[in-house]
């Protein structure tokens, strides 16, 4: 069952759920656009200006787009866990400190990425 469907089914029970559903929907839309923008030239529609010089990787505009990708990953991790069975989200582990001194899905994901 999709995450959207799960939220829709229980949206009336918790006022936070419509907010979460809206965030997932908005970030899914952004995700689709960024996946297309981040493709290796394989977009369905050819983009004009393909021969123009690339943006600087350190450009705040690029970094903001990158941040949106990261935020979407973080939200997806938490919301997917929230849709799983109760207790599916592990409690923080003291031996896996994150930036805030506790383990979180986002921190764990960053650690996994850094380990690759």
């Amino acid at each position, binding site marked *: 069952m999709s995450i959207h469907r799960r939220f829709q089914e229980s949206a009336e029970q918790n006022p936070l759920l419509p907010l979460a559903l809206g965030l997932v929907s908005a970030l899914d839309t952004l995700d689709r656009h960024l996946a297309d923008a981040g493709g290796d030239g394989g977009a369905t529609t050819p983009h004009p200006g393909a021969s123009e010089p690339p943006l600087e990787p350190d450009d705040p505009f690029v970094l903001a787009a990158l*941040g949106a990708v990261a935020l979407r990953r973080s939200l997806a991790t938490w919301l997917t866990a929230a849709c799983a069975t109760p207790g599916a989200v592990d409690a923080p582990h003291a031996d896996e400190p994150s930036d805030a001194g*506790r383990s979180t899905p986002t921190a764990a994901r960053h650690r996994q990425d850094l380990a690759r």
Partner: protein
Amino acid sequence: MSDALLEGLPRIALRTPAGDPVAVLRRLQHVFLAHPIAAQAAFAALVAEGRRFAETAAGQRWQHRLARSPLLRRARAPWDAATLWLLEEGSPEVLPSSYVDALFAVAQSPALEPLIERLMRGVLDEVAHEHP
């Protein structure tokens, strides 16, 4: 796309939008004009999130792809026009994903009610301090 990074993601075909995209971007302009401080804070937070993500292997792959994307490059000009060149990088103390992490960390805690009480007590103390 062959990269495993993008596996499972839906693909889109860009066509002429049904509505007026300029009208939608005008509304975005109005939001930025009405709430410039909030807009700047949100943008700076996203940039900081991107910098942190770029420290990871997956983030570096995304950064490389986005930087050389013709579509994103072309999106730069309408974005600047829609946001009136008002946005710049800042130094937020907390990343957006940290807010998400904190919310769910509190939600998982067996001491949920005391944590909410601390949260509310904090704002009440600030109000009392500012308006003794």
